[in-house]
């Protein structure tokens, strides 16, 4: 069996007496399209923060492509191929999408610390940024300030920033949150068309999207992993139904 792209082993985290991560373990294989679901407060975003290094676990380990990264700084993890998006847009309001994505690419290539080169001369990075924005249908807005963009386009930019890092593992925190229903399917098409060697874990509340795009589902509640399996298994799992819907069946 090949090494999982991302793995967590026994992650524990508490804030005082509140346990936000309780013995969380899972594996994300290469090329995965997994969904992480659970009621509000289940600890999903906390888990992403633990995986990306924003939070340090009290116990447990995180492995990226087999290598232990539990104590690695967040920016180093990104350099190793672990990228994420934020539930609430974490963008650069005064920068344009072109500048933002170019920045992400320059950071990835280690060119960003260079203060002697002309930014305008980094044409390879700008080209790549433009191409990425085109793929996400953001090209026509690429020179407007981010704060002027509509929310749905900002959400796409959020994903573009993560993709610019050319990650091997992509963690999407409610990518369609706040996006009008018509556009969210479009957004997920983008996710579905990602290269097949990237492992994707996305947090989502909309069950239609989850069942349409996920090949496997992890369910969290109260900081613990409640269940994990194929969509059909999860849909019929009585514990999951109890936690989520009070006993009724989940309709895909």
């Amino acid at each position, binding site marked *: 069996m090949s090494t999982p792209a991302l793995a967590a082993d026994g992650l524990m985290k508490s804030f005082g007496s509140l346990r936000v991560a309780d013995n969380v373990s899972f594996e994300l294989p290469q090329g995965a399209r997994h969904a992480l679901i659970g009621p509000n407060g289940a600890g999903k975003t906390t888990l992403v923060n633990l995986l*990306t290094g924003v939070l340090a676990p009290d116990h447990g380990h995180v492995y990226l492509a087999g290598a232990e990264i539990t104590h690695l*700084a*967040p*920016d180093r993890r*990104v*350099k190793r191929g672990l*990228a*994420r998006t*934020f539930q609430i847009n*974490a*963008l*650069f*309001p*005064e*920068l*344009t999408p*072109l*500048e*933002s994505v*170019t*920045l*992400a690419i*320059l*950071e*990835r290539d280690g*060119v*960003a*610390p*260079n*203060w*002697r*080169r*002309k*930014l*305008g*001369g*980094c*044409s390879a990075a*700008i*080209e790549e940024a*433009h191409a990425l924005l085109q793929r996400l249908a953001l*090209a026509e807005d*690429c*020179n407007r300030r981010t704060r002027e963009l509509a929310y749905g386009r900002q959400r796409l930019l959020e994903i573009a*920033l*993560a993709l*610019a*890092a050319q990650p091997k593992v992509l963690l999407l925190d409610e990518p369609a949150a706040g996006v009008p229903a018509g556009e969210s399917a479009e957004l997920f098409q983008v996710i579905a068309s990602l290269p097949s060697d990237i492992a994707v874990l996305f947090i989502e509340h909309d069950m239609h999207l989850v069942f349409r795009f996920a090949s496997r589902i992890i369910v969290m509640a109260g900081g613990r992993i409640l269940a994990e399996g194929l969509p059909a298994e999860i849909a019929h799992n009585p514990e999951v139904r109890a936690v989520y819907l009070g006993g009724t069946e989940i309709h895909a």
Partner: protein
Amino acid sequence: MVLAAPAPSDPRRAIAAAARWRWYETLFWLALLLPYPLLPTYLDLASQIAIAALFALSLDLILGYAGVISLGHAAFFGIGAYFAAILVQRWGWTEPFSGLLVSGVAAAAVGYLASFLIVRVSRLALLMVTLGLGVLLEEAANHLSGLTGGNDGLHEIAVMPLLGRFTFDLYGRTAFLYALAVLFLMFLAARRIVHSPFGLSLRGLRENAARMPALGAPSRARIRVIYTISAFYAGIAGALLTQTTGSVALEALGFQRSAEVLIMLVLGGTGRLYGGIVGSIVFLVARDQLADMNPQYWFFWIGLLLILVVLFIPGGIVGGASALQARLGRRA
């Protein structure tokens, strides 16, 4: 870069286009030479403005471009000023250009050390730490009067004539051209930094410091670098003050100077490189004209102006002009 340019046909060229030198920038710098022929009695003030502008530029680098607020930046100005004086007085090093450079490096060294502390705090703690470090330095300078002359300061600091030929004359002609030349050169370097990949990452830090690690950027290391560069700039400005006026005193590193440079920068507009220069001109000319009459008036009006700028013209004078131009451009 300062005012909006028409959108280029190829969107990818926009970034390069923003960095191009504009005709009105040439005009601006030529205009800065005007005091020499036109206002020969005001050259002392003009030198002070050039020095303040360089100091404001140093603050813009960390505040306008990296988003780090400092209430104690005069510390580096003062270190540069005192170092330049001590070079001449104690070590007989009177060559001005090298003295300038070495003083700048001294300030940069202290800035580098301080940057390790600065990056650990944010918001109120950052305000207090920068304020506290500034006050600490002032206290230290006050007590080490053997070195710094204490309350009296150091005087009669005479450097060699520039390039062996140009002495600092009583009318301040040499001083003015010297200060302006240094300002221009440092400005060009700052412009280069701002329009480099590093400059873009600084703006990213200013816009959303929390997002930068998620892009793979080591935020603290970046801030340390720009903080050190900023200290270098401030130190050079301080050393210029010593070399052109021949003396240095405690007010060079006092809280008042830190507060004034902040006001000058905000007046002119942060994050636009020219804001510090414009703000310094407006502030110092106004103070020269108004404070003579009555210091009270000056405080009142500058306070009011500050409030109005913060509430209604958040981009300062340069930002306001840019927004105006954008609005006029849209109507056309």
